[in-house]
């Protein structure tokens, strides 16, 4: 399946990982901004930070999965 439409689709789906990168950057950046304003409250919120990153990242992983499916399963 050289030059298949599925490959183009897989490439397009990979744009989703860029979107997830924006999301993860947003979470981490806002956490850091908040942590520098009030460092004493930062330590208690690291768990929330990781949950937020995980949720943002999951959607990027879905995009990656779609692209894998297009590459190997379609």
């Amino acid at each position, binding site marked *: 399946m050289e030059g298949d439409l599925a490959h183009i689709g897989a490439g397009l789906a990979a744009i989703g990982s860029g979107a997830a990168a924006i999301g993860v950057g947003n979470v981490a950046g806002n956490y850091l901004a908040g942590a520098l304003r009030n460092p004493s409250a930062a330590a208690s919120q690291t*768990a929330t930070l990781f*949950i937020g990153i*995980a949720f943002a*990242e*999951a959607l990027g*992983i*879905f995009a*990656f*999965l779609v692209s894998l499916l297009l590459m*190997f399963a379609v």
Partner: protein
Amino acid sequence: MATEAEGGGLVFHPMDQFIVKPLFGDGAVGMFTFTNVALWLLLAVACVVALMVLGTSKRATIPTRTQSVAELAYGFIYKMVEDVTGKDAVKYFPYIFTLFMFIVFSNFLALIPMSFSPTSHIAVTAILGFGVFFAVTILGFVKNGAGFLGLFWVSSAPLALRPVLAIIEIISYFVRPVSHSIRLAGNIMAGHAVLKVFAGFAAITAVAPLAIFGIIGIYALEVLVSFIQAYVFTILTCVYLKDALHPSH
């Protein structure tokens, strides 16, 4: 599916490392075939057992290195369960600790060169993810009865909005096990595939130095990701457990 690039660059496929093979002989993989996945899952279990049994057998006042690691892991997860889920959830701590240790050891063992990464398979992580999902859902109904459905009825929202929110909440509840398991498998699979892609570049003379430094960097990142994904899996289990024990918003 070996890809031959010009100049003898990429001679193996980056996804080849995830092929499930029977360990003895080469027949078809059946229901009870002892595969490489089974081997590395067993190794992970053996490592967890070794660490915890050897680490806690002496119970020395001045801990040895093994005992320190075992105590550190125990204390880390214990504090997480207490902080995220609450003091009343400590009796579910053994399950959560087992999940964490198992995932973290399968992830770390997978980083040994030429090893196999069982957690890169959605079949493996889906069992873990759906196990958590069913355990938490059944526990929610056992603990709260029909009150568990209050999880989907956001009582702090305006009345007109609640049915709409209920639909969204139900959808998000049933997507949980999917995202829970695919997050782990996807991260590990993507990381190992990237490592193999860089390893393929290392065979091309012009970019070899760059590729080797790339491998070092990505490998360091993968060590971090291995731990963080185990941590995230565990902390999400804690969050889901908290929802089951205290479903009111």
